[in-house]
């Protein structure tokens, strides 16, 4: 069991504040997703937590900073790089090398190799590994010390759908055992299934922190979908409620600012027939895009696409 407490983390690069006063807690028994647009400071934050980058603030694992942990891989397993290994050192030897200072025996090395499905290539050179295989080796390194805390930066990068499912089940299983799992990912649908809690940042600052459902429901993007042939009657009634209504592509009316009960009552009072009435929850993706819309560091434009087409 380990409580991760990050307090006032900060980091500047040549005057640019990459991470600014970030504080959050990751509790045992949960998977905490770490979300943010590209360049928002997720990887930097994770490196700060482990003392790999020099910056402000402090992170403790059950009250102890990472660099004071005895045999740290037995406490905290980390995956921070896509391919952090020498290309010609055999995968098994790579793990044995990391295991040596942490007093982890070769049996455990073989166990984690089997756990991540690399038994057949354990004596292969990682330089020839695909991105997904390299990622599995990185995950094996993180699991090596059977740690109570996992910090994983984009662990699903390069994994195939089976691999992503395997990873999800593994992380949920580890969290269910009471471990703390802190994981960043760009796969929002995957994160919606995997995470219990979220830390959402933009431009290095905290945007949201709490349970996934709270983040979605507080986004204000939940709506009520109504199908009615009497929009002329329902429209003014919704306006009177202070709700906003718009018509989507297939003719349904999407109402925001009112509950399904309020919309149903208003329709009844206005004498409008209702063929369908349902509440639609926002998705994590919608909530994330709404939360980070103004916090994107790097934004593509459609104009760029047009310019490419013009050149053709």
């Amino acid at each position: 069991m380990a409580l991760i407490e990050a307090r006032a983390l900060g980091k500047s690069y040549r005057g640019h504040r990459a991470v600014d006063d970030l504080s959050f807690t990751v509790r045992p028994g949960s998977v905490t997703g770490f979300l943010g647009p590209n360049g928002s400071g997720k990887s930097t934050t994770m490196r700060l937590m482990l003392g790999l980058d020099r910056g402000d603030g402090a992170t403790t694992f059950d009250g102890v900073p990472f660099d004071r942990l005895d045999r740290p891989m037995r406490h905290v397993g980390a995956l921070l790089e896509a391919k952090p290994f020498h290309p010609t050192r055999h995968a098994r030897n790579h793990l044995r090398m990391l295991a040596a200072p942490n007093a982890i025996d070769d049996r455990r090395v073989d166990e984690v190799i089997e756990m991540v499905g690399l038994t057949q290539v354990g004596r292969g050179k990682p330089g020839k590994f695909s991105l997904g295989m390299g990622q599995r080796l990185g995950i094996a390194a993180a699991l090596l010390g059977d740690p109570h805390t996992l910090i994983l930066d984009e662990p699903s990068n390069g994994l195939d759908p089976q691999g992503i499912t395997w990873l999800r089940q593994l992380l949920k299983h580890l969290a269910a055992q009471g471990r703390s799992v802190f994981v960043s990912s760009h796969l929002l649908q995957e994160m919606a299934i995997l995470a219990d809690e979220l830390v959402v940042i933009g431009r290095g600052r905290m945007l949201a922190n709490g349970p996934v459902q709270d983040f979605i429901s507080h986004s204000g993007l939940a709506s009520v979908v109504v199908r009615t042939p009497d929009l002329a009657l329902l429209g003014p009634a919704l306006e009177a409620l202070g709700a906003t209504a718009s018509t989507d592509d297939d003719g349904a009316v999407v109402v925001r600012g009112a509950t399904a009960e309020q919309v149903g009552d208003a329709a009844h009072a206005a004498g409008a027939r209702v063929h369908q009435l349902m509440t639609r929850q926002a998705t994590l993706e919608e909530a994330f895009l709404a939360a980070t819309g103004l916090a994107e560091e790097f934004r593509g434009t459609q104009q760029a696409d047009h310019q490419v087409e013009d050149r053709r």
Partner: protein
Amino acid sequence: MIGALRYEYLRLRTLRSTYWLIGIAMTFQLVMSIVIAAVVANSSSAIGDDTVFDVLATIGASAGFAPLFIAFIIGLLGVFSTGHEYRHGMIRATLTAIPNRTHVFVAKVLSTVVVSALAALLCILIALLCLVAFGLEMPSVKDFVDMTAGTTIFTVLFSLSGLAYGALTRNQTAAVALLLLVPTVIEAIIRAIVIAIKGFSDDPQEQGGFVQILKFLPYDAGGKLYTRASIDDLLSFLGYTPFGAVGGGIVMAVFVAALLGGAYALFLRRDA
């Protein structure tokens, strides 16, 4: 600290370049020692026993006209000890396994010292075996001790400078270039410029003066640890008196210590 040393031991043992570099160095040493010993054994001219041993142990570098081959090859292991960390992004994995940066750095220094010293001592052993195999006379005890200590200390210091270049530049290619160019090209250029200026001065044979800075070219000074005659001797007419083995060794040791000190300070301060 023991954990960091275990890590370094496995790091060296599980890298092919460790075996390749030591293998190349020892093969070259063995082949050249056999060739030189065979030539000397069949020669009718009288060569001092110490000189034969010196030439065999250094493959001619003791004459001052060639670099110490073993140092240049084993020095690459010094570069790789830090260079690989940055070239392959291993540094973050290393520091998550051993968060104490002092332990990581000291373990790298110690492992480089041990490997370099063992390689240098193996060269001495090969030279002795060749003397025995070709029926040549053994060196005097004093020369044996001086040459063994000299080549070992130089090789260790040379490798440590490679380690420091790797840590300072965090770029393996740049570190290899520095290790090869500073002793051979940069110091030679500095020497040529100083000699030219001195040669065109009003009194080229005046003792002392700024020509004395040549004494402090670190690798050149360190070379006095194993050279018994050198090109520097020809420069005495310019008023230049190089350091001996001890003085030269101290100059090189101070230079390498400064490099290591800078590398260590930056290693503690920088992001991994």
